């Protein structure tokens, strides 16, 4: 199936390109710490959401274990960075270990439960993820329990590191941006995310991606044509687990902290789910838009809601519902309405508009 070039599709791609450009120059455009934090989080989430979209949008599998794989990658790097000290070896080894564990889990869950109904699979992944979460908070000698692990990133990413120096031996700065370790860390996150995202983009355009769409549209028919549905589903589950795990490793290096809340919690999983659905399932572009909207909302909408909550101080109950912590309430409502009226999400709906012949 060739995608028809619609004005909507062009617009969406334009927006994604714009987002990409903004992220590329983020350290220069938004020069405070918080914005850089937001930008890095957006990069990671784009990869994570896109890899989740491979499952839910392209193959029609609902998995709740995606954060589990993300967590394996994050904890792999975190534990080794803590034990072996900062350096590249623990990052690489930890990343690989995370991928290996993720693959073992993905193959086991996949072969065990992808044969049965989609709903069983959703429930089993949910159960598996919750068990891993409990284990992570209980095996505190390895994982730091509820407190998580704090560690140091490789030396290159220390804020004091001079990546480029000017003639005086000081940190070179360009338009007020210092070329220090923080900048290097951001570009590490950005480039890794970009590579992973482009890989996925290439993948969904490949013949294999087409087979997956065929399975989503009509499982029985795909099976009848001669594709082994279970094998393909298990494969895509493993692929998306691998990518999620790598994203976890990158995030662990960026954040220099890994704990249940940043890598494994159910709220995190809900975030990913919301991003995929809001952005639009079954389009890689939707993942980008969903991730950007949600992360920006997470950071800035709360401030706005705090103002609204104070403004309504006299009204009963409304201030409670407008409190910054209740932002998920509104998001949940928006989510339900989106699933009813625009099941294809923002990108999917927009891309159908303005068909050109």
């Amino acid at each position, binding site marked *: 199936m060739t995608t028809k070039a619609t004005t909507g599709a062009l617009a969406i791609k334009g927006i994604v390109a714009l987002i990409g450009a903004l992220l590329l120059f983020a350290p220069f455009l938004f020069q405070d710490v918080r914005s850089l934090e937001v930008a890095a989080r957006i990069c990671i989430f784009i990869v994570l959401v896109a890899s989740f979209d491979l499952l839910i949008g392209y193959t029609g599998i609902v998995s709740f274990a995606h954060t589990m794989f993300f967590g394996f990658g994050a904890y792999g790097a975190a534990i080794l960075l803590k034990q072996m000290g900062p350096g590249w070896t623990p990052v690489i080894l930890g990343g690989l270990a995370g991928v290996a564990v993720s693959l073992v889990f993905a193959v086991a869950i996949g072969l065990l439960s992808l044969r049965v109904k989609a709903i069983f699979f959703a429930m089993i992944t949910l159960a598996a993820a*919750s068990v891993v979460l409990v284990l992570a908070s209980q095996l505190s000698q390895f994982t730091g329990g509820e407190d998580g692990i704090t560690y140091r990133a490789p030396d290159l990413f220390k804020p004091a590191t001079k990546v480029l120096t000017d003639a005086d031996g000081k940190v070179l700065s360009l338009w007020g941006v210092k070329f220090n370790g923080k900048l290097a860390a951001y570009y590490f996150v950005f480039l890794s995310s970009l590579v992973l995202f482009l890989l996925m983009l290439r993948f969904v355009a490949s013949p294999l991606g087409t087979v997956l769409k065929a399975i989503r549209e009509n499982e029985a028919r795909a099976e009848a044509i001669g594709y082994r549905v279970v094998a393909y589903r298990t494969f895509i589950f493993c692929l998306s687990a691998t990518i999620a795990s790598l994203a976890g490793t990158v995030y662990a290096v960026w954040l220099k902290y890994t704990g249940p809340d940043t890598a494994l919690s159910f709220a995190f999983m809900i975030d990913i789910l919301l991003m995929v659905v809001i952005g639009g399932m079954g389009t890689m572009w939707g993942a980008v838009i969903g991730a950007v909207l949600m992360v920006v909302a997470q950071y800035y909408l709360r401030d706005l809601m705090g103002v609204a909550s104070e403004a309504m101080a006299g009204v009963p109950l409304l201030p409670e519902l407008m409190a910054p912590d209740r932002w998920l309430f509104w998001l949940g409502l928006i989510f339900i309405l989106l699933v009813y009226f625009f*099941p294809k999400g923002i990108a999917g709906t927009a891309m159908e508009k303005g068909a050109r012949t």
Partner: protein
Amino acid sequence: MSTLSTTLGRMGGVNLLPFAVAAVAFLLIGAPSSWVTLTVAGLAMGMMLFLMASGLSLVFGLMDVLNFGHSAFVSFGAFISATVLAGLGGWLAADSWVLNSLALAASYLAAICFGLVAGWFFETVIIRPVYRDHLRQILITIGAMIVAEQTILAFWGGTPYSVGRPHFLEGSWIIGDVSIEIYRAFAFALGAAVFVMLYLVLNRTRIGLLIRAGVENREMVEALGFRVDRLFIGVFMLGSALAALGGAMWAGYETLITPALGAELMIVVFIVVIIGGLGSIEGTLLGAILVGLMANYVGFLAPKLALASNMILMVAILLWRPNGLRPAVK
């Protein structure tokens, strides 16, 4: 080998599993008194889990709808009954068991009424538009669960909420060196009564016959002229009410509840439903008791493995019987 399996089958087949688990645990634990205490606790927990899970299982069996928001009914039930109990604090503290039980009954009734109304609302508003579309069902019910959880947070706040317990259910009976908490025995008895009622309704009445037939083959029942969708609303409301009742009982069992209660229990409820096999209340009961017993035994023998034990149980059972122990639909 085959004679062994026929003998086992004649003795009750998979229904023997809880007994087998209890027997193995007896050997591992060694001390009979702690074994009895743990078994009673496990049975009580199993019965509460059964209440929460039975609705989910029937709803799925009848209409192929899986409600990920089911846990919302559980937590609402818990919080509503706790609020009613707090409101009737005077009755609860009174030294007469009549007033005590009136307060308790009022709190349970409030939870059940809420479950009925919320179930009706949930079915018509949330689920009706997405029949026969699993992906959107999962997403919509997840959304509803988020909204429900946030509503609880907005009303009751995030701090743990303490639940009053009627005076006559406090304490425990001591028989020899065995101590049995009264509340656990009470929970078990109430759960068992509900199970018997459900069983009788499903197996002895015309409505029950229709429900069972609908689970088996919905199209056929519809073709014979029955409105399965109306039946379905009824089952959904009943299931929600039972979940709310389960939540209310759980609140009394825990005595300190947080809004995260629903999400925590949901996992266990899913495991119960998967183990038991979707669509049959006997299977759900079996799964619930197995999970309850396992959770208590393992919690005693190896505390760190408590939640993982349910997962292992589920994997083992799924490897053995991919559709659960006693699925209604073969």
